């Protein structure tokens, strides 16, 4: 499976009469995009806004960020199962607009500031909030929309996500026919050949939790080829499928957006080292179930797939969601270790025993076999919001995001990452 990403580097975005790219600038016909998104009868009152790095814009209630990508081949499926019919992704050529983000926002009708703070993620394009999120560095196309009459909140949320995916494909199509600034080739033979070529290198699998069922997943939320994966058991994917639209971030996912699934840093790291000091064998995707029986099943199946199907010597694990998925990840790692797969975990900590007078943070779980863990920070702390010149979003509790409000860091989209893109590490002081 060979995937070529034709990357166009975009340095600015402007509204124009025609959607086009010139000299690294993306010109956007906002009306055309709005009409495209309003074809979905579940949405009305669609608006498209632009937020550039450095602008004093605050984007309100960000639910996903997506990198514009589209298949270059005619009929090549984009986000199959979600916006296109089923089809195979992970091979062929895909156009990428690097430096652009499609930011999907949801309206926020809560009036109470506390309720608002508990449910709303923001992105600032400048200042201290912007410093904490990689999304402030992108030229963002922000999508706003209301639910059409009679549409349930769940349907509205699914429709918003799909609107974001459609916008991402629409934008990337503007790059058709342009010579790429860079071509990134991802090729990984998973057959026996590679074992012959690289016999001494240890085989590594990536065990990737894509969904937590702590909160009820949305019906119809496209997560894996259009499926909401609420009841999925562990299965194997080729890494290229992940880069190429097979998986998108579930609605309400914590610290995981589609953007960093498309650009999964763990897979990037493993790919770069494939053939040098390891063999990347594949990705085992799973969800984090909310009950013991399904947890045990998922942990056992994932470990068995790694050991007896992929023949892995080692695995990296990441989690989705909060505390309970940390336990599922631990159990999976423990099962791996018990059958001879060496593991390393990277995660952010949801809870912590502050009575421990040790220097390092602690996990929620206790499993002596699991002995290699990387801290990716913890969702604690807050900062004072600076004055924004413009708010992008639909919301009522205006006072809740004004200058001077103490804003929790966990409610800044992109501030923390489940997938390894942040440089944060938690320590005790």
């Amino acid at each position, binding site marked *: 499976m060979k995937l070529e990403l034709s990357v166009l580097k975009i340095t600015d975005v402007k509204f124009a009469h025609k959607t086009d790219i010139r000299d690294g600038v993306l010109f956007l016909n906002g009306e055309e995009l709005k009409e495209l998104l309003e074809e979905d009868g579940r949405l009305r009152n669609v608006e498209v806004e632009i937020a550039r790095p450095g602008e004093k814009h605050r984007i309100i209630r960000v639910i996903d960020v997506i990198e514009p990508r589209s298949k270059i081949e005619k009929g090549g499926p984009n986000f199959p199962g979600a916006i296109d019919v089923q089809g195979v992704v992970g091979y062929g050529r895909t156009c990428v607009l690097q430096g652009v983000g499609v930011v999907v926002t949801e309206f926020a009708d809560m009036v109470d500031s506390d309720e608002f703070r508990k449910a709303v993620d923001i992105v600032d394009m400048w200042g201290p909030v912007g410093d904490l999120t990689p999304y402030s560095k992108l030229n963002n196309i922000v999508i706003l929309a209301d639910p059409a009459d009679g549409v349930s909140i769940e349907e509205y949320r699914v429709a918003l996500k799909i609107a974001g995916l459609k916008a991402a494909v629409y934008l990337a199509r503007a790059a058709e026919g342009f010579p790429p600034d860079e071509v990134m080739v991802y090729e990984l033979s998973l057959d026996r050949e590679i074992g012959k070529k690289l016999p001494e290198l240890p085989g*590594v699998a990536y065990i990737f939790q894509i969904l937590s069922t702590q909160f009820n997943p949305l019906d119809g939320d496209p997560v894996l080829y259009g499926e909401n994966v609420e009841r999925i058991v562990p299965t194997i994917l080729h890494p290229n499928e992940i880069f190429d639209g097979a998986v998108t971030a579930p609605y309400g996912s914590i610290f995981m957006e589609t953007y960093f699934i498309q650009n999964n840093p763990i897979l990037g790291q493993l790919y770069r080292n494939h053939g040098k000091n*390891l063999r990347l064998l594949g990705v085992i995707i799973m969800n984090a179930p909310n009950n013991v029986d399904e947890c045990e099943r998922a942990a056992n199946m994932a470990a068995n797939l790694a050991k007896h199907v992929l023949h892995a010597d080692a695995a990296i694990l990441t989690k989705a969601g909060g505390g309970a998925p940390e336990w599922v990840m631990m159990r999976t790692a423990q099962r791996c270790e018990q059958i001879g797969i*060496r593991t*390393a975990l990277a995660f952010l900590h949801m809870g912590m025993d502050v009575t421990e*007078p*040790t220097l*390092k943070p602690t996990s929620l779980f206790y499993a002596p076999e699991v002995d290699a*863990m990387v801290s990716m920070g913890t969702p604690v702390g807050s900062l004072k919001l600076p004055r924004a010149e413009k708010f992008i979003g639909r919301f009522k509790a205006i006072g809740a995001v004004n200058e001077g409000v103490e804003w929790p860091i966990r409610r800044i989209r992109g501030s923390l990452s489940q997938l390894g893109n942040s440089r944060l590490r938690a320590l*005790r002081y």
Partner: protein
Amino acid sequence: MELRRLRVVHYLNQFFARIGGEEKANVEPRVIEGPTGPGRAIQNALGERGEVIATIVCGDNYFSENVENAVDEIIPLVYRYQPDVMIAGPAFLGGRYGVACGAICKAVKERLNIPAVTGMHAENPGVNLFHRDVYIIQTGPSAATMNEAVSKMVQLVVKIAEGEKIVGPAHDGYIPRGIVVNEMTGQTGAERVFEMLLAKIQERSYESEVLQPKHDRVVPAAPVRLIEQAMVALVTDGGLVPKGNPDGIESVGATRFGEYSLQEEVALKEEAFDVCHAGYDSTFVKQDPNRLVPVDVMRILEREKRIGKLYNKFFSTTGVGTTVEDARKIGRAIASELRAEGMSGVILTST
């Protein structure tokens, strides 16, 4: 400009003040002008930066047998000297001494607003009691490490007094205070986890960035003998609260619990309750609170005489991101009340 010399008051137990050993452990608080014992090492480390103007001495038993009184007696002695900083110990592994050092530093800091530093071995019981409130320099187990301990204590106290930035426990030598912070590192999480895995595969040394908690071992209570006569209570960490959350139980990181009357209820009524737990989808509980706190079923069992009685209150907190310390505190408080009420059994529902 010449820096003003810092005025330092030092606290010692009877042993380090050379008053005597265990036989003198009951001596009352007293003051010695100037430095004595380890105070001389402090004076050396301070050099021209400051002066140990007084040493306060108290017997370990006198202190540990009347902690509050002893603190009340010692604070005015400290105040009299108007120090800029307080140093206590170091106590090394001395348990009673460590607790005294921690308690005095905490009181001096809180009541007199004077910065205070002490020193202990990581296993001193004073560490668990006071590391959150007080800077405790990590020392070796015994006075053999006195000079090193004193030098770090003095460096830190001078830093605090002069308003310099405290860099962190590893750098400044103090025992982490349980405050969790995020720090920016040079590498992404992906890079670090990859390198850790590679080191592990290649059998090179690596250091896990996360430790595992030490869990308590809890011995289960004996089974309920006569369940038909037993009084049974309902306890939940699923965050069921009366509408309006009257006790203000936190939705994340709970520090308290509530107890709510079940005098009349045949079953919990949906309109009277809410869920304040931020870690699960509570839609189904809000529709019918008995799904979380099964009063309806318990009343049937009561009627059928399959249990003796349902206790007339239920207890509720939220178990999400709750620190072990708070969970322990909440658990103890609930358990002691249940025990006082003669409870035979508890059904704990979690989410």
